[in-house]
């Protein structure tokens, strides 16, 4: 789960990280009031779950409250990479002496959280990694021991010559690590970590991505979810316990299992079609899920044909068949439907479908080819 910059900063602040004062505004007037309260120059920053806000004009420096109001008016409602800006963070602008990057991700190779730190901060770390990898220090953390003081200090010295700044940075590494672990992060970063001309370290931007699997045990973090900043179809899918990702094609796919769902999308493409989505109904054969899946897919006007691809293992294919019948009775489909079912209770499923006027195949390639043809306006083979 993505959380907003202001939320990540709240978490980091609660772990002791030095963060410039800031508040969220949803209207230009609120933004003006916050800027007035601080009485100094501020930054107005779009709160959206997407990178490149700055380049898109979503981050502005404002000398006066009036300017903050004006810039907030421009940013609120702005569309950044398909997402509408609903909130801005109004935060005290810091004088910047130097900018560093500090981040932690869970690394698959070492199976550990790994720090990445670089004195080349303020820009995209993947760019630094690609162009000047020697400017990044990677420090894996063995969670059994936590982040040892010596490793934190080593990172401090990698960023700063001055021992006081190195120590301050080491403290921030510990705070960031504590926040990362306590918040169930898969990524946490401070970019830039700024040293002001007076030599003080400040975290000017913060980002966190939370492991969805942590949300059940971290209700305070789970409550940070901002559904207004997500695609409505994905919100609905999540609430129905489906995994759904919208794509640009016209063949709607309903599949059980993530691997098979990806393979189905690939096969659509292989046979010359374009998948409209990734949709995994998971292992359960609850007919409700099938109903929700069809509702979400049919809401997309670009979908020209729908393909079910179900391999029944735990999933009972007769349950899926019943779900299809129920869903299409209450909301008759306006696009053709191709069904492939095989595995557990296949015979019953076929009987149910036939009794309700559906045809079905048990061959994946055949079904995919049919769906692709139908989406192109052709007829089912």
């Amino acid at each position, binding site marked *: 789960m993505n959380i907003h910059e202001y939320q990540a900063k709240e978490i980091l602040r609660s772990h002791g990280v030095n963060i410039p004062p800031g508040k969220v505004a949803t209207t230009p007037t609120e933004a003006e009031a916050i800027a007035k309260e601080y009485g100094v120059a501020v930054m107005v920053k779009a709160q959206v779950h997407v990178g490149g806000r700055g380049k898109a004009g979503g981050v502005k420096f404002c000398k006066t409250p009036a300017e903050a109001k004006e810039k907030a008016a421009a940013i609120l409602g702005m569309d950044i990479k398909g997402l509408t800006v609903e909130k801005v963070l109004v935060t005290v602008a810091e004088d910047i002496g130097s900018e560093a990057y500090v981040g932690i991700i*869970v690394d*698959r*190779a070492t*199976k*550990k*959280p790994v720090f990445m730190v670089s004195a080349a901060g303020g820009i995209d770390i*993947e760019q630094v*990694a*690609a162009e000047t990898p020697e400017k990044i220090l990677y420090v894996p953390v*063995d*969670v*059994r021991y936590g982040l040892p003081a010596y490793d934190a200090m080593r990172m401090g010295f990698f960023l700063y010559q001055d021992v006081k700044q190195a120590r301050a940075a080491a403290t921030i590494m510990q705070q960031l690590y504590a926040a990362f*672990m306590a918040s*169930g992060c*898969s990524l946490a970063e401070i970019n830039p970590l700024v040293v002001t001309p007076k030599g003080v370290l400040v975290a000017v931007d913060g980002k966190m991505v939370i*492991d*969805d*699997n*942590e949300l*059940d*045990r971290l209700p305070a973090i789970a409550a940070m979810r901002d559904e207004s900043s997500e695609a409505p179809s994905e919100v609905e899918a999540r609430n129905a316990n489906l*995994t759904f*990702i919208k*794509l640009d094609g016209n063949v709607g796919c309903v*599949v*059980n*299992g*993530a*691997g*098979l*769902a*990806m*393979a189905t*999308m*690939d*096969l*659509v*493409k*292989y046979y010359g079609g374009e*998948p409209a989505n*990734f949709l*995994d109904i998971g*292992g359960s054969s609850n007919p409700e899920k099938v109903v929700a899946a069809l509702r979400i897919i049919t809401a997309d006007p670009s979908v020209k044909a729908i393909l079910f691809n179900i*391999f*029944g*293992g*735990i*999933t009972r294919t007769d349950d899926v068949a019943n779900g299809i019948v129920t869903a299409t009775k209450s909301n008759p489909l306006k696009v053709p439907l191709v069904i492939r079912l*095989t*595995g*557990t209770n296949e015979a019953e499923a076929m009987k149910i479908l036939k009794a309700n006027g559906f045809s079905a195949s048990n061959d*994946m*390639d055949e079904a995919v080819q049919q769906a692709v043809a139908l989406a192109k306006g052709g007829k089912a083979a």
Partner: protein
Amino acid sequence: MSIFIDKNTKLIIQGITGRDGSFHAKQMMEYGTQVVAGVTPGKGGQKFEGKVPIFNTMVDAVQATGANASVIYVPPAYAADAIMEAAASGVAFVVCITEGVPVLDMTKVHPFVKERGVRLLGPNCPGLISPGESKVGIIPGGICTPGPVGVVSRSGTLTYEVVDKLTRAGIGQTTCVGIGGDPINGTNFIDCLEAFEKDPKTKAVAMMGEIGGTDEQEAAAFVKKHMKKPVVGFIAGQTAPPGRRMGHAGAIISGSSGTAAEKIEAFEAAGMGVAKRPKDFVELIKARLK
């Protein structure tokens, strides 16, 4: 022969009285797996289906039955602890079916099982089956048949799809292993490839990877360097956009790494067969078994 499990595997089911645990316990028993015990805290002394003794703790279960493997069906919040309990109890092989285990839990579990020399399969995996010998997990027994092909895959239903096609084409399997779709898991492709290479009955390997990470690339390098047996590979997610998680927590293309294209390239560079569609496995494997 087979890898990891066979006729002699004596299995404990952790969470045997739960919804999923009890359902699959019966399936495994029907398949012929030696289910020697179950564990559910507070139900020690009872019997599952009137025959499998239930214990409060893994230590009790292992001591009483001499089990050498366990399979875990407990909710995600308790899965990491269940894995560690199993690893500390004396069994040599632990399979965790549970989906949704926090990845930070796994950063702790991983060294725990490793320093005890225990093999973990999963979490978030369908388990494994050595057709005709033993089944541990949830792979439908009916689609498998004994034979010369080792199967290893990140995913569940995609495995079924391929295994089903192989079986229908008359090509049986030594063992089918689902390693799971999480970014940190206990057993990876290389572990399985190494075991298949050593298994005298396995004559060829079918391997189904996914986008995300570099495990498939490392597996390809392993095939090139260490394997004499033919391997055919497939990558799911060729059409997936970067930065979006395709269901599996591990299936995400980040930056310039983890794309299907680079993985397929690695397969080709290793001299592996590459299946473009799941059905291609049938002909590619057949050709390599001759």
